[in-house]
């Protein structure tokens, strides 16, 4: 199959999914008496410089979230607990950084590591339950999400400082803050310094997945668990490592915002990122590049949708509907396209072999 054809097929599914989502969204809006035209107008206006920066920041955060989910998804391990792992990790990281046991940049680095460890540990609970007792990680990670919310709320109440209506952990000393940098010239809003973690993590993911033995075994387990076992992969160990790694990356999600803007964990922390990350991972087909594109698109949608309430009188929640429909359509579309591609390949193989045979008969 030619590279062009392969490329077209790869894009066909997401494009199809967005078309379907666009249609469904418009229909829903019509049904509730809102105007699809106004919706599209708001959504498609060119964003201001400040909004672009916010978008890229959010995209980086979504990327990390998607990556965390994708690590598991690549081996058919469904870590739905990214949200809980992100909360636990960010809390742990903020708490540690706030105590300032170490000076300056050391504090930052150590805190990030603490966050990763906390995220990994929380995910590890589900991994251990799966490996030792066969508990479905789908249910256990979701339960752990809920437990995490209550647990962090309790701990925050115990160790946090009440500031007006909110409670926050001790503020991180300014010498541990990570400076941002200017993305759009002339704009004061900056890209979080730690947003670069997304790039690092993405490259790391790509390298590990495609060029290391561990990555091969991870993908093999995702292709066919029975074949992986026969080839010597210790699936139980794989499940555990995968969950730990997934949790560790989830631990990074809150870091850019923590060290770049809020400097403390508070009850106003952004929620739902874990779930959006799952959607982004599915949209990007669990590949490093695909997730990046997915994250950018979802960040764009989220950013552009926020003024919907004011400018068009449409509840911004509609964008959640769009996102949801995109996810469902894309997984269906991927399935259809991959089956079609398989059939094409089989026909191509048969045709090539037939031609070869005829060539042999002539030569003989």
């Amino acid at each position, binding site marked *: 199959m030619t590279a062009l054809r392969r490329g077209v097929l790869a894009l066909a599914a997401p494009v199809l999914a967005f078309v379907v989502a666009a249609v469904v969204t418009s229909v829903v809006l019509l049904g509730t008496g809102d105007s699809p035209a106004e919706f599209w107008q708001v959504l498609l206006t060119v964003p201001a410089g400040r909004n672009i920066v916010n978008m890229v920041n959010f995209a980086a955060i979504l990327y990390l979230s998607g990556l965390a989910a994708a690590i598991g998804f690549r081996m058919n391990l469904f870590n739905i607990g990214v949200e809980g792992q992100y909360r636990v990790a960010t809390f742990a990281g903020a708490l540690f950084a706030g105590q300032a046991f170490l000076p300056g940049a050391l504090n930052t680095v150590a805190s990030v590591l603490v966050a990763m460890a906390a995220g990994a540990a929380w995910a590890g609970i589900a991994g251990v339950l799966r490996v030792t007792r066969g508990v479905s990680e789908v249910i256990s990670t979701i339960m752990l999400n809920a437990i995490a919310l209550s647990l962090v709320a309790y701990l925050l109440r115990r160790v946090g400082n009440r500031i007006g209506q909110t409670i926050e952990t001790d503020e991180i000393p300014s010498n541990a803050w990570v400076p941002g940098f200017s993305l759009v010239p002339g704009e004061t809003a900056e890209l979080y310094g730690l947003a670069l973690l997304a790039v690092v993590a993405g490259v790391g993911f790509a390298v590990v997945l*495609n*060029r*290391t*033995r*561990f*990555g*091969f*075994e991870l*993908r*093999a387990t995702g*292709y*066919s668990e*029975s*074949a992986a*076992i*026969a*080839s*010597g*992969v*210790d699936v139980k160990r794989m499940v555990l490592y995968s969950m730990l790694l997934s949790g560790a990356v989830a631990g990074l999600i809150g870091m850019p915002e923590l060290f770049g803007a809020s400097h403390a964990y508070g009850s106003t922390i952004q929620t739902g990122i874990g779930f959006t990350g799952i959607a982004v991972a599915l949209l990007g087909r669990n590949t490093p590049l695909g997730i990046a594109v997915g994250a950018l698109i979802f960040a764009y949608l989220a950013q552009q949708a926020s003024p919907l309430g004011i400018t068009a009188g449409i509840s911004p929640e509609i964008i959640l509907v769009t996102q949801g429909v995109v996810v469902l359509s894309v997984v269906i579309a991927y399935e259809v396209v991959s089956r079609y591609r*398989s*059939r094409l*390949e*089989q*026909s*191509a*193989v*048969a*045709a*090539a*072999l037939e031609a*070869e045979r005829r060539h042999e008969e002539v030569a003989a």
Partner: protein
Amino acid sequence: MSRTTAAPAGRLAVSLHRIGKRFPGVVANHDVSFEVRQGTVHALVGENGAGKSTLMKILYGVHKPDEGTIEINAERVSFSSPTDAIGHGVGMVFQHFQLADNLTVLENVVLGAEKRHGIADAARAEIGRISTAYGFELDPDELVETLGVGERQRVEILKVLYRGASIIILDEPTAVLVPQEVEALFANLRELKREGNTLIFISHKLDEVLAIADEITVLRRGTSVATVLPGEVTSHDLAELMVGAELPSPSTEESTVTDDVILDVAGLTVSDAHGRPELADVSCTIRAGEVLGIAGVEGNGQTELVEAILGIRKALAGTITLAGADVSTWGTRRRRAAGVGYIPEDRQRHGLLLDAPLWENRVLGHQTRAPSSRGIWLDRRGARADAQRIVTDYDVRTPGIDTAARALSGGNQQKFIVGREMSGEPVLLVASHPTRGVDVGAQAAIWDHIRAARRRGLAVLLISADLDELIGLSDSIRVILRGRLVGEFDPQTVTPQQLGSAMTGASERTEEPV
């Protein structure tokens, strides 16, 4: 063993005319025509991949033909599902039994035919009646999970009779039976024929076909080649019609067995999750240059033996020694890295990543060693180069090494697997049904590779249901029955009947030592 010499007369039960069927990338049937007379046993023979199963699935309504017509009892029909076929009195007993383990015999039989006798007592009575009439001895309330192979086959036949089938298709019914059970089946079939039923019998076992059939149709490469009477042909004639060329024959050659013990299994015991023994006190030895064949009916512990040797399944007791080292506690990866090659019984589930390209499949099972890896890194170039080498050396028909494994035919997939497992100089090859579902050409090639490797000193554990393969390739044969090794035979002198007796434990005479 009787052979009819006169052509049976009577109405036509089934008439197929110029049937054709295509799937993406493959032509399964083209221009197939033959007729089956009512009250006869009509055999359909051909090698693996000749299109027999597809043709019968068309007759049973699972597939629709692209070309051609079907007539049942002289009436033209067009089936769009098995329900239509069942409605016309056609029933099919599949090669791979289609039974739900967690349901009872009754539930399996009435499924889809609940309207006939309900799903309770009336159905129970009817099943009892059929079972008694043909001597099946089946208890309607027993879970299918607990039944043996022969019993399950009888449930399949009962299913078909329960629905009032008078035209019964049997797809390779003797593939999982030993010679004694085959005779029992044939007795059942003759009884069915006497009652006026029509039987279509698919097989590639020519001796059996000549014993039971009234008429034989030969398929080759998807088309019907000839229809003959058993009295007019020998099995050799049939084989030539099937293959159209020289038959490969497993032949024996000079012994290459050395004195170096490569594999030593002692007292191996394996149980399942409920504590029931699947392997009990199994001991055997394989030397360099020796092929040890294990014969046995499916489900007697072969799979467990293979998995225990590879480390996929934990043993309760016993030791396994590989080239002098005790590997009993080693994991699968370590054993494979130590030089154990594995040709799995089910290549699609255990031997290949179907949706991955061929070169990545080269890495599978060998991801800790060159040429596929260097330390923690994957050596893509090394893997690709070696994949290419395998494709060339083992005559794997594929457009390239980036093709997904799924796109290759069964025979080529198997050749690739054999090539992969022979690479890296293994000391032990565990080959489980290595030529199952493989066309004759690939089968011969695989046998040649195994013999060549044996000459170079490879030790081989060969598990097979093909008695000819076992007799032809092995230096010694042992029989496995209910988890124990119960007999040792010399392939030069043993007959399929002797093996069959050992495989069922139905030996009445005692052997005299020679």
